[in-house]
């Protein structure tokens, strides 16, 4: 059964909301955006290393990454006179930076001072003003997709097992983890019966979308699976997911979301090597694969990597770091004006730490993301305000 037949099979359900077709309206042009959420508060200070600050080396006697050395091709990569990139991503993200396809925004984050993972992740994904009560049914990617749907369809997807809060409020966005993709369990008749059973129920759209996407993705990757049996090189883990994400975003979707866990390094995070560098290396390889798999579509794609907060500037008693405040976002893309450290900045010293503990937030995440979205899609002020209410977009001139 091809997709058209399945769509016809599910047609009865689709007619009700008129939403199902939009999911699969393969866009012909326009930008792509992928949000990569590092859950756990990654230690941005050991990713973008403030190597000109002697206080960095004082504050992290056991876990500081050594200063960049021009003679070394494996150590930290100096990006400018102040900042260096972690050795773990030197060959991947570092290479993109040198091609001006990567940029970093330090001192970025939220006004949320709870230093709670869950609270801060929620505030970011909701993207609402902190004052006032939260509407848990309205995430900023959901608002973005809805806002853009007016003029140009922005097919969206979450590459996750559960629906992220960022997409809350849009009943039409499907979710599916690409860790394992196999044959769908139900044939056309069974899928129709299941959809019919939920006819008129508030889960109807989700039921129908889920069955349809499962089928569609199995078909998309049938070739990949056939090839994998012969192919000696076998990508794994996040790289494999990233490759599949790229295939789907190249062909079908314009806005994507994925989260990656394992960043809450309270104990033994390592310096140039160790648990944090291992995670960073895997992430870097995955994003490099993503850019390569997109091919020419990488030119109109922007990826933002973010996390709920940074960590304490000083190492703690266990060679790890505790919850902090300001962090570093990554912006990647084939046609961005990269190779820069963007946004408001300040000297890194003990005196400039926030609450004598962590990085301050000089760049509000809503302004930064809002600015990127505005440039990417040429959004009107009304559209910008719909995505991030009460926060003007800030143009970092990256897009």
């Amino acid at each position, binding site marked *: 059964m091809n997709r058209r037949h399945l769509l016809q099979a599910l047609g009865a359900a689709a007619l009700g909301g008129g939403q199902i077709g939009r999911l699969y309206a393969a866009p012909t042009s326009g930008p792509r955006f992928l949000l990569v959420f590092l859950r756990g508060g990654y230690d941005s200070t050991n990713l973008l290393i403030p190597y000109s600050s002697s206080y960095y080396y004082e504050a992290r006697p056991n876990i500081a990454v050594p200063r960049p050395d021009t003679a070394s091709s494996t150590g930290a990569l100096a990006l400018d006179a102040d900042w260096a990139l972690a050795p773990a991503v030197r060959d991947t993200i570092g290479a993109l930076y040198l091609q001006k396809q990567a940029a970093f925004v330090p001192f970025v984050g939220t006004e949320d001072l709870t230093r709670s993972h*869950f*609270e801060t992740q929620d505030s970011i994904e909701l993207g609402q003003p902190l004052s006032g009560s939260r509407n848990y049914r309205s995430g900023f990617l959901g608002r973005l997709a809805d806002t853009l749907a007016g003029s140009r369809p922005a097919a969206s997807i979450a590459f996750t097992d*559960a*629906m992220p809060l960022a997409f809350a409020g849009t009943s039409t966005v499907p979710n599916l983890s690409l860790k394992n993709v196999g044959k769908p369990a139900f044939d056309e008749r069974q899928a129709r019966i*299941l959809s019919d*059973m939920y006819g008129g129920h508030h889960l109807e759209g989700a039921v129908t979308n889920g069955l349809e996407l499962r089928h569609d993705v199995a078909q998309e990757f049938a070739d990949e699976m056939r090839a994998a049996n012969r192919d000696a090189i076998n990508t794994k883990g996040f790289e494999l997911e990233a490759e599949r994400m790229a295939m789907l975003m190249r062909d079908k979707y314009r806005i994507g979301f994925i989260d990656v*866990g394992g960043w809450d390094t309270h104990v033994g995070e390592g310096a140039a090597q160790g648990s944090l560098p291992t995670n960073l290396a895997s992430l870097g390889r995955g994003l490099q694969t993503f850019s390569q798999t997109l091919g020419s579509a990488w030119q109109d794609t922007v990826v933002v990597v973010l996390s709920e907060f940074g960590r304490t500037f000083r190492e703690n008693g266990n060679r790890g770091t505790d919850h902090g405040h300001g962090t570093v976002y990554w912006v990647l893309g084939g046609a961005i004006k990269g190779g820069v450290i963007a946004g408001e900045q300040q000297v890194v010293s003990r005196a400039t730490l926030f609450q004598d503990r962590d990085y301050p937030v000089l760049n509000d995440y809503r302004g930064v993301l809002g600015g990127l979205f505005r440039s990417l899609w040429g959004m009107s002020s009304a559209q910008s305000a719909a995505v991030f209410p009460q926060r003007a977009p800030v143009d970092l001139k990256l897009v």
Partner: protein
Amino acid sequence: MSISAYARGSLTGLSACLLLVCSACATRTPTAAATGAPQVGGAPLPVLRREDVLWLERVTFGLDSTTVADYQRLGRERFLAAQLHAVDRPLPAPIAATIAAMEVTHIDSQATLADVAARNKALGALPEGADRELARKTLGDHGNELAYEAIRRDLLRAVYSESQLQEQMIWFWLNHFSVYQHKANVRWVIGDYEERAIRPHALGSFKDLVLATLEHPAMLQYLDNQQNAAGHVNENYARELMELHTLGVGGGYSQGDVQQLALVLTGVGINTGEPPRLKPELRPLYRRHGAFEFNPARHDFSAKILFGVPVRGQGFAEVENAVALIVAQPTCARFIARELATYFVSDNPPPALVARMARTFQQSNGDIAAVLHTLFTAREFDASLGGKFKDPMRFVVSSVRFAYDGRAISNVKPMLNWLNSLGEAPYGRQTPDGYPMTELNWASSGQLSRRFEIARAIGSGNAGLFDAEQGTTAGAAGFPQLSNRLYFEAVEPFLLAKTRDALGRANSQQEWNTFLLSSPEFSYE
């Protein structure tokens, strides 16, 4: 006719009669005899109403015949009293025997962790090579086996215990005080955590529950407090103790309070070996039971201030005082009341109900059974019935309870696989917030299609539930007969038209089972 021809064909003569009677009824006013309700001593039991079924589904992990009969015999009030107070009721003999034979039933954390340490030490002394690798693998396999036994025991109790509310509360608290089996040596002690820290207090005193988790090596390892010492402060546990376990974010504590509580908690850790050599003045302050240790030499004795209240440096008494201070906060009562109401009542629990539960919490010094009594007897609870989406644990356990109705399964691996696949692996939440309890988090398009696939796995065969745990002996073949008496008594009368229609389009009993387990009626309770 509302039931598929296939299901009808699979019925016994008696049930077929009953089906004809029921489906002919436009309204639900059959006599007890006509519904085939179980009879005790010849007296007919009351007919189940829809609200009875929904009430039971919520208070338990799902319907089985024993629970239904209990409810019919006792009535709602006495049934609830028994669920709240008559805990640890005996399990069916084959299940009790299975649990009694498990290694995890006979060990404690102290001995286990001491053994792991000794074996790790012996391992380290071996030269690099095959022997060392084998020893390492043997040790790792043993840890995994113990964790699996703990999960197996949990699932068997969830399915078969008559103390259904107690088992739900154990799941609730294990999730509230969540630990992750794949960190450090946590997997070796999760069985002990459930049995000795959570189970005794699941319907008891909240303060005792907090202290029991605080002192348990599973929690001490998971949130790093075993490494929290004077001069090497780690505030991970201090923060989550307030944010996730007791007060909730916005519960009236500051970053300063987190740091002060972290100091209070310095020295609270694990020791499975010799006691430390202490200066004479510190010796009276040393505490130890099981693997838990309070080592005053690692404690920061400076004066602290928590919520504006001075805490004198005095050792472990600071911890006890701090916990007492925290659980006495009105925000703690409200937070716990709201968590319970979110799990048992609604994704958005009515504020008035939460307020009444919080008042009970405060008046009873955090008596969990008393708070739950307020909850289950509230009109808001009755009004909420049928509207709560089952999380994967409730879905999987209620499926097995319903499909096999008391028949003892011998292998829980299929259940574990289903939970893993649905994203709610036991002791598998990496972050300390526990699994979410609301529909928003479990009913996305991807999760629903996965759930239907699991419904198919449950409905289409025995899935290996009757295989031996060890080895490959295949047990009884076949698929469950979901169109059983329980179905006709408690499910069929209340099905919606669209579900009846879907069931009528099934081509086989397996497919019929799949549709029933996928239906909105089975997804909500």
